Protein backbone atom coordinates (compact mmCIF):
# COMPACT_ATOMS: atom_id res chain seq x y z
CA UNK A 1 0.00 0.00 0.00
CA UNK A 2 1.24 3.44 -0.80
CA UNK A 3 0.07 7.06 -0.72
CA UNK A 4 0.43 9.75 -3.36
CA UNK A 5 -0.78 13.34 -3.46
CA UNK A 6 -1.53 14.71 -6.91
CA UNK A 7 -2.91 17.88 -8.43
CA UNK A 8 -5.43 17.22 -11.20
CA UNK A 9 -6.32 19.86 -13.75
CA UNK A 10 -9.62 19.11 -15.48
CA UNK A 11 -10.30 20.59 -18.93
CA UNK A 12 -13.63 22.50 -19.21
CA UNK A 13 -15.55 19.71 -20.94
CA UNK A 14 -14.68 17.15 -18.26
CA UNK A 15 -15.71 18.96 -15.11
CA UNK A 16 -19.07 17.24 -14.98
CA UNK A 17 -17.65 13.69 -15.42
CA UNK A 18 -17.50 11.38 -12.38
CA UNK A 19 -13.76 10.81 -12.66
CA UNK A 20 -13.06 10.10 -9.00
CA UNK A 21 -15.82 7.48 -8.97
CA UNK A 22 -13.80 5.51 -11.52
CA UNK A 23 -10.63 5.75 -9.48
CA UNK A 24 -12.47 4.15 -6.58
CA UNK A 25 -14.55 1.62 -8.47
CA UNK A 26 -12.14 0.49 -11.21
CA UNK A 27 -8.77 0.84 -9.47
CA UNK A 28 -9.71 0.16 -5.84
CA UNK A 29 -8.15 3.40 -4.60
CA UNK A 30 -9.01 5.23 -1.42
CA UNK A 31 -9.39 8.84 -2.49
CA UNK A 32 -9.28 11.84 -0.23
CA UNK A 33 -10.05 15.22 -1.78
CA UNK A 34 -7.86 17.72 0.03
CA UNK A 35 -8.96 20.69 -2.02
CA UNK A 36 -11.19 21.23 -5.02
CA UNK A 37 -12.17 24.11 -7.21
CA UNK A 38 -14.59 23.10 -9.91
CA UNK A 39 -16.91 25.56 -11.64
CA UNK A 40 -19.16 24.84 -14.63
CA UNK A 41 -17.55 25.86 -17.93
CA UNK A 42 -14.24 26.55 -16.30
CA UNK A 43 -11.07 24.56 -15.86
CA UNK A 44 -11.19 22.61 -12.58
CA UNK A 45 -8.49 21.80 -10.05
CA UNK A 46 -8.47 19.05 -7.47
CA UNK A 47 -5.80 18.19 -4.93
CA UNK A 48 -6.23 14.50 -4.30
CA UNK A 49 -4.64 11.94 -2.02
CA UNK A 50 -4.58 8.44 -3.45
CA UNK A 51 -4.14 5.47 -1.14
CA UNK A 52 -3.83 1.95 -2.49
CA UNK A 53 -1.76 -0.70 -4.19
CA UNK A 54 1.24 0.86 -5.95
CA UNK A 55 0.42 -0.65 -9.34
CA UNK A 56 -3.22 0.40 -8.99
CA UNK A 57 -2.17 3.98 -8.32
CA UNK A 58 -0.07 3.93 -11.50
CA UNK A 59 -2.95 2.45 -13.50
CA UNK A 60 -5.26 5.08 -12.06
CA UNK A 61 -2.91 7.87 -13.02
CA UNK A 62 -2.66 6.40 -16.55
CA UNK A 63 -6.45 6.39 -16.74
CA UNK A 64 -6.51 10.08 -15.76
CA UNK A 65 -3.99 10.93 -18.48
CA UNK A 66 -6.12 9.10 -21.04
CA UNK A 67 -9.05 11.35 -20.09
CA UNK A 68 -6.76 14.30 -20.89
CA UNK A 69 -6.61 15.32 -17.24
CA UNK A 70 -3.29 16.91 -16.44
CA UNK A 71 -1.73 15.32 -13.36
CA UNK A 72 1.29 16.32 -11.37
CA UNK A 73 2.65 15.29 -8.00
CA UNK A 74 1.81 17.74 -5.27
CA UNK A 75 4.86 19.88 -4.67
CA UNK A 76 3.29 22.19 -2.12
CA UNK A 77 4.45 22.00 1.40
CA UNK A 78 4.00 23.86 4.66
CA UNK A 79 7.18 25.32 6.06
CA UNK A 80 7.45 26.46 9.68
CA UNK A 81 10.33 28.79 10.51
CA UNK A 82 11.56 27.74 13.95
CA UNK A 83 13.44 31.00 14.48
CA UNK A 84 10.23 32.98 14.01
CA UNK A 85 7.78 30.64 15.79
CA UNK A 86 7.01 31.68 19.37
CA UNK A 87 5.11 28.46 20.22
CA UNK A 88 1.90 30.29 21.07
CA UNK A 89 -0.28 27.69 19.39
CA UNK A 90 -2.68 30.12 17.69
CA UNK A 91 -2.43 27.99 14.53
CA UNK A 92 -3.54 24.80 16.28
CA UNK A 93 -7.19 25.67 16.81
CA UNK A 94 -7.81 26.50 13.14
CA UNK A 95 -5.98 23.35 11.98
CA UNK A 96 -8.98 21.15 11.34
CA UNK A 97 -6.93 18.12 10.29
CA UNK A 98 -4.95 18.35 13.57
CA UNK A 99 -1.59 18.41 11.81
CA UNK A 100 -0.49 21.27 14.06
CA UNK A 101 -0.50 20.72 17.80
CA UNK A 102 1.31 21.73 20.93
CA UNK A 103 3.36 19.10 22.73
CA UNK A 104 1.49 18.35 25.97
CA UNK A 105 4.64 18.54 28.05
CA UNK A 106 6.85 21.24 26.55
CA UNK A 107 4.03 23.25 24.91
CA UNK A 108 6.16 23.58 21.80
CA UNK A 109 4.64 23.38 18.33
CA UNK A 110 4.64 20.05 16.50
CA UNK A 111 3.74 19.51 12.85
CA UNK A 112 2.58 16.15 11.51
CA UNK A 113 3.08 16.57 7.78
CA UNK A 114 1.11 13.41 6.93
CA UNK A 115 -2.07 14.93 8.40
CA UNK A 116 -1.75 18.31 6.66
CA UNK A 117 -4.32 18.90 3.94
CA UNK A 118 -2.71 22.19 2.85
CA UNK A 119 -5.86 24.21 3.52
CA UNK A 120 -3.71 27.23 4.41
CA UNK A 121 -5.86 28.41 7.33
CA UNK A 122 -2.78 28.56 9.56
CA UNK A 123 -0.93 31.00 7.31
CA UNK A 124 -2.97 34.08 8.17
CA UNK A 125 -3.62 32.91 11.71
CA UNK A 126 0.06 32.93 12.68
CA UNK A 127 0.64 36.32 14.36
CA UNK A 128 4.37 36.34 13.68
CA UNK A 129 4.21 34.99 10.10
CA UNK A 130 6.27 31.92 10.89
CA UNK A 131 4.33 29.64 8.50
CA UNK A 132 4.63 29.67 4.73
CA UNK A 133 3.25 27.53 1.95
CA UNK A 134 5.91 26.62 -0.60
CA UNK A 135 5.49 25.48 -4.21
Amino acid at each position, binding site marked *: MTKKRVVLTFPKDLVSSPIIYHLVKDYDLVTNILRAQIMPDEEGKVVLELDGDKSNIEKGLKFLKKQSIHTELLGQDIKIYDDKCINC*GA*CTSVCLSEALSLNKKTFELEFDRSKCILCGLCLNTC*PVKAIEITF
Partner: protein
Amino acid sequence: MNRTYAEINEKIKKGKAVVLTAEEVVELARTKGVKKVAEEVDVVTTATFGPMCSSGVILNFGHSDPPIKLQKVWLNNVPAYGGVAAVDVYLGATELSEISGLKYGGAHVIEDLIRGEDIKLKSISEGTDCYPRKEINTSINLKSINQAIMINPRNAYQNYAVAVNTSDSTIYTYMGTLLPRMGNANYCNAGQLSPLIKDPLYRTIGIGTRIFFCGTVGYVAWEGTQHNPSAERDPRTKIPYSPAGTLCLIGDLKKMSTNYLRAASFYGYGTTLYIGVGVPIPVLDEQIAEAVCVSDKDIYATIFDYSVQKRSRPKLGRVSYEQLRSGEIEIKNKTVKTASLSSYAKANNICKELKNWIKSRKFYIQEPIQQLPLDQTFKPLAETR
Protein backbone atom coordinates in the same frame (compact mmCIF):
# COMPACT_ATOMS: atom_id res chain seq x y z
CA MET B 1 7.70 30.73 58.28
CA ASN B 2 7.98 34.44 57.59
CA ARG B 3 10.76 36.15 55.64
CA THR B 4 11.63 39.78 54.94
CA TYR B 5 12.88 41.25 51.67
CA ALA B 6 16.23 41.97 53.34
CA GLU B 7 16.57 38.34 54.49
CA ILE B 8 15.78 37.03 51.03
CA ASN B 9 18.25 39.40 49.35
CA GLU B 10 20.93 38.43 51.87
CA LYS B 11 20.37 34.77 50.92
CA ILE B 12 20.60 35.67 47.23
CA LYS B 13 23.88 37.49 47.91
CA LYS B 14 25.28 34.43 49.69
CA GLY B 15 24.11 32.15 46.88
CA LYS B 16 21.82 30.33 49.32
CA ALA B 17 18.37 31.44 48.13
CA VAL B 18 15.97 28.70 47.07
CA VAL B 19 14.46 29.88 43.80
CA LEU B 20 11.85 27.89 41.87
CA THR B 21 9.96 28.65 38.68
CA ALA B 22 6.17 28.85 38.89
CA GLU B 23 5.89 25.45 37.20
CA GLU B 24 8.40 23.89 39.61
CA VAL B 25 6.63 25.27 42.69
CA VAL B 26 3.28 23.89 41.50
CA GLU B 27 4.92 20.48 41.16
CA LEU B 28 6.58 20.74 44.58
CA ALA B 29 3.26 21.67 46.19
CA ARG B 30 1.55 18.74 44.46
CA THR B 31 4.04 16.20 45.80
CA LYS B 32 5.13 17.71 49.14
CA GLY B 33 2.41 20.20 50.02
CA VAL B 34 2.15 23.97 50.47
CA LYS B 35 3.68 23.85 53.97
CA LYS B 36 6.92 22.52 52.55
CA VAL B 37 6.93 25.34 49.99
CA ALA B 38 6.39 27.95 52.72
CA GLU B 39 9.26 26.46 54.73
CA GLU B 40 11.79 26.01 51.95
CA VAL B 41 11.21 28.35 49.03
CA ASP B 42 12.42 31.97 49.05
CA VAL B 43 11.47 33.18 45.59
CA VAL B 44 9.15 31.97 42.81
CA THR B 45 9.68 33.29 39.29
CA THR B 46 6.52 33.99 37.27
CA ALA B 47 6.20 35.16 33.67
CA THR B 48 4.05 35.81 30.67
CA PHE B 49 4.75 36.19 26.96
CA GLY B 50 1.77 37.52 25.08
CA PRO B 51 0.47 40.14 22.68
CA MET B 52 0.14 43.44 24.56
CA CYS B 53 -1.27 46.24 22.40
CA SER B 54 -0.76 48.93 24.99
CA SER B 55 2.99 49.10 24.44
CA GLY B 56 5.37 51.60 22.89
CA VAL B 57 8.62 53.53 23.15
CA ILE B 58 9.73 57.08 23.86
CA LEU B 59 12.58 57.98 21.52
CA ASN B 60 14.92 60.95 21.62
CA PHE B 61 16.85 61.57 18.38
CA GLY B 62 19.04 64.57 19.32
CA HIS B 63 19.00 67.79 17.28
CA SER B 64 19.78 68.26 13.59
CA ASP B 65 21.55 71.39 12.34
CA PRO B 66 19.65 73.63 11.83
CA PRO B 67 17.25 72.15 14.40
CA ILE B 68 13.67 71.08 13.79
CA LYS B 69 10.70 70.63 16.09
CA LEU B 70 9.41 67.20 15.00
CA GLN B 71 5.68 67.81 14.64
CA LYS B 72 4.41 65.23 12.20
CA VAL B 73 6.74 62.25 12.42
CA TRP B 74 7.03 58.95 10.54
CA LEU B 75 9.36 56.03 11.27
CA ASN B 76 9.47 53.60 8.31
CA ASN B 77 6.19 55.27 7.24
CA VAL B 78 4.56 54.52 10.60
CA PRO B 79 3.28 57.73 12.27
CA ALA B 80 4.73 58.53 15.71
CA TYR B 81 3.47 61.14 18.16
CA GLY B 82 5.59 64.31 18.31
CA GLY B 83 3.44 66.51 20.50
CA VAL B 84 6.02 66.70 23.28
CA ALA B 85 9.42 68.46 23.30
CA ALA B 86 11.19 69.05 19.96
CA VAL B 87 12.94 65.74 19.37
CA ASP B 88 11.04 63.41 21.70
CA VAL B 89 8.45 61.12 20.11
CA TYR B 90 6.23 58.25 21.27
CA LEU B 91 5.80 55.33 18.93
CA GLY B 92 2.93 52.97 19.73
CA ALA B 93 2.84 49.26 18.86
CA THR B 94 -0.53 49.30 17.06
CA GLU B 95 0.10 52.36 14.86
CA LEU B 96 -0.04 51.17 11.25
CA SER B 97 2.23 51.92 8.31
CA GLU B 98 0.65 54.38 5.86
CA ILE B 99 1.97 52.18 3.05
CA SER B 100 1.85 48.54 4.24
CA GLY B 101 -1.38 48.76 6.26
CA LEU B 102 -2.16 45.95 8.69
CA LYS B 103 1.06 44.05 7.98
CA TYR B 104 3.62 46.50 9.39
CA GLY B 105 3.26 48.84 12.30
CA GLY B 106 4.88 50.44 15.33
CA ALA B 107 5.55 46.99 16.80
CA HIS B 108 7.64 46.08 13.75
CA VAL B 109 9.61 49.33 13.93
CA ILE B 110 10.37 48.53 17.59
CA GLU B 111 11.53 45.00 16.71
CA ASP B 112 13.62 46.35 13.79
CA LEU B 113 15.24 48.88 16.13
CA ILE B 114 16.32 46.09 18.49
CA ARG B 115 17.67 44.14 15.52
CA GLY B 116 19.96 47.13 14.87
CA GLU B 117 18.37 48.02 11.54
CA ASP B 118 18.31 51.52 10.08
CA ILE B 119 14.89 53.16 10.32
CA LYS B 120 13.75 55.96 7.98
CA LEU B 121 12.89 59.11 9.93
CA LYS B 122 10.72 61.66 8.17
CA SER B 123 9.23 64.77 9.72
CA ILE B 124 7.56 68.02 8.75
CA SER B 125 7.13 71.09 10.90
CA GLU B 126 5.88 74.69 10.90
CA GLY B 127 9.29 76.26 11.43
CA THR B 128 9.84 78.71 14.30
CA ASP B 129 12.58 81.14 15.33
CA CYS B 130 14.19 78.58 17.59
CA TYR B 131 13.39 75.55 15.36
CA PRO B 132 13.60 76.99 11.83
CA ARG B 133 13.73 73.77 9.85
CA LYS B 134 10.53 72.60 8.16
CA GLU B 135 11.45 69.17 6.89
CA ILE B 136 13.85 66.31 7.54
CA ASN B 137 14.47 62.97 5.82
CA THR B 138 17.15 60.81 7.34
CA SER B 139 17.70 57.49 9.03
CA ILE B 140 18.35 56.50 12.62
CA ASN B 141 19.14 53.31 14.50
CA LEU B 142 19.16 52.20 18.12
CA LYS B 143 22.83 53.16 18.58
CA SER B 144 22.51 56.60 16.99
CA ILE B 145 19.69 57.85 19.20
CA ASN B 146 19.92 59.10 22.79
CA GLN B 147 17.14 57.24 24.58
CA ALA B 148 14.77 54.47 23.68
CA ILE B 149 12.58 54.01 26.74
CA MET B 150 9.90 51.38 26.54
CA ILE B 151 6.91 52.50 28.56
CA ASN B 152 3.83 50.36 28.25
CA PRO B 153 0.59 51.74 29.70
CA ARG B 154 -0.99 48.32 30.11
CA ASN B 155 0.81 44.97 30.29
CA ALA B 156 0.59 41.62 32.09
CA TYR B 157 -3.19 41.48 32.44
CA GLN B 158 -4.38 39.58 35.48
CA ASN B 159 -6.34 36.93 33.63
CA TYR B 160 -8.03 37.33 30.25
CA ALA B 161 -11.05 36.25 28.25
CA VAL B 162 -11.68 33.07 26.31
CA ALA B 163 -13.01 34.18 22.92
CA VAL B 164 -15.52 32.32 20.74
CA ASN B 165 -17.70 33.27 17.79
CA THR B 166 -21.31 32.05 17.66
CA SER B 167 -22.12 33.79 14.36
CA ASP B 168 -22.23 32.13 10.94
CA SER B 169 -19.11 33.73 9.54
CA THR B 170 -15.43 33.85 10.49
CA ILE B 171 -14.37 36.96 12.41
CA TYR B 172 -10.86 38.39 12.71
CA THR B 173 -10.12 39.87 16.12
CA TYR B 174 -7.29 40.77 18.48
CA MET B 175 -8.05 37.33 19.92
CA GLY B 176 -7.09 35.82 16.55
CA THR B 177 -9.20 34.15 13.88
CA LEU B 178 -12.48 32.93 15.37
CA LEU B 179 -14.23 30.32 13.28
CA PRO B 180 -18.04 30.39 12.87
CA ARG B 181 -20.47 28.47 15.11
CA MET B 182 -17.88 28.14 17.88
CA GLY B 183 -15.37 26.41 15.58
CA ASN B 184 -12.59 27.31 18.01
CA ALA B 185 -11.91 29.09 21.29
CA ASN B 186 -8.86 31.31 21.83
CA TYR B 187 -7.44 32.34 25.16
CA CYS B 188 -4.52 34.52 26.16
CA ASN B 189 -2.91 34.07 29.55
CA ALA B 190 -0.02 32.12 31.01
CA GLY B 191 -2.32 30.73 33.76
CA GLN B 192 -0.27 29.13 36.52
CA LEU B 193 2.88 30.97 35.34
CA SER B 194 1.27 34.41 35.17
CA PRO B 195 2.59 37.11 37.58
CA LEU B 196 -0.67 38.72 38.74
CA ILE B 197 -2.40 35.33 38.96
CA LYS B 198 0.29 34.23 41.40
CA ASP B 199 0.00 37.42 43.48
CA PRO B 200 -3.74 37.98 43.19
CA LEU B 201 -4.01 40.74 45.83
CA TYR B 202 -0.83 42.59 44.73
CA ARG B 203 1.04 41.98 47.98
CA THR B 204 4.49 41.88 46.40
CA ILE B 205 3.90 43.34 42.94
CA GLY B 206 3.55 47.13 43.17
CA ILE B 207 5.11 50.38 42.08
CA GLY B 208 8.88 49.97 41.98
CA THR B 209 8.93 46.17 41.67
CA ARG B 210 12.02 45.11 39.69
CA ILE B 211 11.15 42.76 36.82
CA PHE B 212 12.49 40.89 33.80
CA PHE B 213 11.38 43.03 30.86
CA CYS B 214 11.97 41.68 27.35
CA GLY B 215 15.42 40.34 28.22
CA THR B 216 16.63 43.17 30.47
CA VAL B 217 15.79 44.65 33.86
CA GLY B 218 12.68 46.82 34.04
CA TYR B 219 10.32 48.18 36.67
CA VAL B 220 6.63 48.44 37.46
CA ALA B 221 6.06 52.18 36.94
CA TRP B 222 2.42 52.43 38.01
CA GLU B 223 -0.86 50.57 37.94
CA GLY B 224 -1.72 49.86 34.31
CA THR B 225 -4.57 51.55 32.45
CA GLN B 226 -7.97 49.89 33.01
CA HIS B 227 -6.61 48.39 36.25
CA ASN B 228 -9.72 46.80 37.67
CA PRO B 229 -9.13 45.07 41.00
CA SER B 230 -12.88 44.94 41.67
CA ALA B 231 -13.55 42.19 39.11
CA GLU B 232 -15.29 39.15 40.57
CA ARG B 233 -12.83 36.80 42.27
CA ASP B 234 -12.77 33.14 43.17
CA PRO B 235 -13.60 33.24 46.90
CA ARG B 236 -11.02 30.54 47.64
CA THR B 237 -7.96 31.61 45.60
CA LYS B 238 -8.84 35.35 45.23
CA ILE B 239 -7.97 35.03 41.53
CA PRO B 240 -10.30 37.08 39.28
CA TYR B 241 -12.48 35.18 36.78
CA SER B 242 -11.96 37.79 34.06
CA PRO B 243 -9.50 40.57 33.10
CA ALA B 244 -8.67 42.56 36.28
CA GLY B 245 -5.39 44.10 37.47
CA THR B 246 -2.82 45.50 35.00
CA LEU B 247 0.71 46.92 35.15
CA CYS B 248 2.39 49.93 33.55
CA LEU B 249 5.98 48.85 32.84
CA ILE B 250 9.15 50.73 32.02
CA GLY B 251 12.57 49.65 30.75
CA ASP B 252 15.46 50.33 28.37
CA LEU B 253 14.73 49.21 24.80
CA LYS B 254 18.45 49.44 24.01
CA LYS B 255 19.09 46.40 26.20
CA MET B 256 16.11 44.30 25.07
CA SER B 257 16.28 41.13 22.99
CA THR B 258 14.07 39.87 20.17
CA ASN B 259 14.02 36.53 22.01
CA TYR B 260 11.57 38.16 24.40
CA LEU B 261 9.90 40.80 22.26
CA ARG B 262 8.24 40.15 18.92
CA ALA B 263 6.15 42.19 16.52
CA ALA B 264 2.93 40.53 15.41
CA SER B 265 0.15 41.14 12.95
CA PHE B 266 -3.28 39.70 13.58
CA TYR B 267 -5.05 39.07 10.31
CA GLY B 268 -7.87 41.56 9.80
CA TYR B 269 -7.05 43.37 13.06
CA GLY B 270 -3.60 44.92 12.80
CA THR B 271 -0.31 44.97 14.62
CA THR B 272 0.57 44.34 18.23
CA LEU B 273 3.66 43.53 20.24
CA TYR B 274 4.49 40.29 22.06
CA ILE B 275 6.09 41.29 25.35
CA GLY B 276 7.99 38.99 27.68
CA VAL B 277 7.59 39.87 31.37
CA GLY B 278 9.03 38.00 34.33
CA VAL B 279 8.24 38.89 37.94
CA PRO B 280 9.86 37.36 41.02
CA ILE B 281 7.52 36.71 43.93
CA PRO B 282 9.22 36.58 47.34
CA VAL B 283 7.59 33.95 49.56
CA LEU B 284 7.18 36.24 52.59
CA ASP B 285 4.67 34.07 54.42
CA GLU B 286 2.29 31.15 54.14
CA GLN B 287 -0.45 33.16 52.44
CA ILE B 288 1.93 33.99 49.58
CA ALA B 289 3.16 30.40 49.49
CA GLU B 290 -0.42 29.26 49.05
CA ALA B 291 -1.01 31.72 46.21
CA VAL B 292 2.09 30.75 44.23
CA CYS B 293 1.16 27.05 44.45
CA VAL B 294 -2.22 27.39 42.72
CA SER B 295 -2.22 25.30 39.54
CA ASP B 296 -4.03 25.57 36.20
CA LYS B 297 -6.87 23.34 37.43
CA ASP B 298 -7.89 25.96 40.01
CA ILE B 299 -7.53 29.03 37.77
CA TYR B 300 -10.63 29.95 35.77
CA ALA B 301 -11.33 32.17 32.78
CA THR B 302 -14.66 33.38 31.42
CA ILE B 303 -15.83 32.55 27.88
CA PHE B 304 -17.11 35.56 25.90
CA ASP B 305 -18.93 35.67 22.57
CA TYR B 306 -16.86 38.00 20.37
CA SER B 307 -19.41 37.96 17.54
CA VAL B 308 -21.56 40.37 19.56
CA GLN B 309 -20.21 43.83 18.73
CA LYS B 310 -21.11 45.39 22.06
CA ARG B 311 -19.13 46.66 25.03
CA SER B 312 -20.54 43.88 27.20
CA ARG B 313 -20.19 40.65 25.33
CA PRO B 314 -22.40 37.74 26.42
CA LYS B 315 -20.74 35.26 28.79
CA LEU B 316 -20.95 31.59 27.86
CA GLY B 317 -19.49 30.04 30.99
CA ARG B 318 -16.26 29.47 32.80
CA VAL B 319 -13.40 27.01 32.21
CA SER B 320 -10.14 26.19 33.98
CA TYR B 321 -6.74 26.71 32.38
CA GLU B 322 -6.15 22.98 32.74
CA GLN B 323 -9.16 22.38 30.47
CA LEU B 324 -8.03 25.10 28.07
CA ARG B 325 -4.54 23.64 27.83
CA SER B 326 -5.90 20.14 27.12
CA GLY B 327 -6.75 21.40 23.62
CA GLU B 328 -10.53 21.22 23.87
CA ILE B 329 -13.34 22.46 26.09
CA GLU B 330 -17.09 21.90 26.31
CA ILE B 331 -19.36 24.88 25.65
CA LYS B 332 -23.11 24.25 25.69
CA ASN B 333 -22.58 20.52 25.02
CA LYS B 334 -20.29 21.20 22.08
CA THR B 335 -16.62 20.19 22.05
CA VAL B 336 -14.56 23.18 20.92
CA LYS B 337 -10.85 23.22 20.05
CA THR B 338 -8.80 25.69 22.05
CA ALA B 339 -5.64 27.61 21.28
CA SER B 340 -3.56 30.11 23.18
CA LEU B 341 -2.30 33.39 21.79
CA SER B 342 0.21 33.83 24.57
CA SER B 343 3.08 31.35 24.59
CA TYR B 344 3.32 29.03 27.59
CA ALA B 345 6.68 27.70 26.36
CA LYS B 346 8.18 31.19 26.10
CA ALA B 347 6.75 32.22 29.49
CA ASN B 348 8.29 29.13 31.05
CA ASN B 349 11.65 30.02 29.47
CA ILE B 350 11.43 33.48 31.02
CA CYS B 351 10.71 31.93 34.46
CA LYS B 352 13.87 29.84 34.03
CA GLU B 353 15.96 32.78 32.79
CA LEU B 354 14.88 34.99 35.70
CA LYS B 355 15.64 32.14 38.10
CA ASN B 356 19.16 31.98 36.62
CA TRP B 357 19.60 35.73 37.06
CA ILE B 358 18.69 35.46 40.75
CA LYS B 359 20.80 32.33 41.32
CA SER B 360 23.80 34.06 39.72
CA ARG B 361 23.29 37.18 41.88
CA LYS B 362 22.54 39.44 38.94
CA PHE B 363 19.06 40.27 40.19
CA TYR B 364 17.74 41.20 43.63
CA ILE B 365 14.16 41.50 44.85
CA GLN B 366 12.86 45.07 45.18
CA GLU B 367 10.13 45.76 47.70
CA PRO B 368 7.33 47.89 46.20
CA ILE B 369 7.48 51.59 47.06
CA GLN B 370 3.71 51.79 46.92
CA GLN B 371 0.99 49.13 46.63
CA LEU B 372 -1.34 48.93 43.64
CA PRO B 373 -4.93 50.04 44.31
CA LEU B 374 -7.31 47.32 45.43
CA ASP B 375 -10.53 49.29 45.48
CA GLN B 376 -11.26 50.92 42.14
CA THR B 377 -13.37 50.00 39.13
CA PHE B 378 -12.98 50.24 35.37
CA LYS B 379 -15.45 52.87 34.16
CA PRO B 380 -17.09 52.82 30.73
CA LEU B 381 -17.16 55.89 28.47
CA ALA B 382 -20.48 57.69 28.83
CA GLU B 383 -21.24 59.77 25.74
CA THR B 384 -22.55 63.26 26.45
CA ARG B 385 -24.12 65.79 24.14
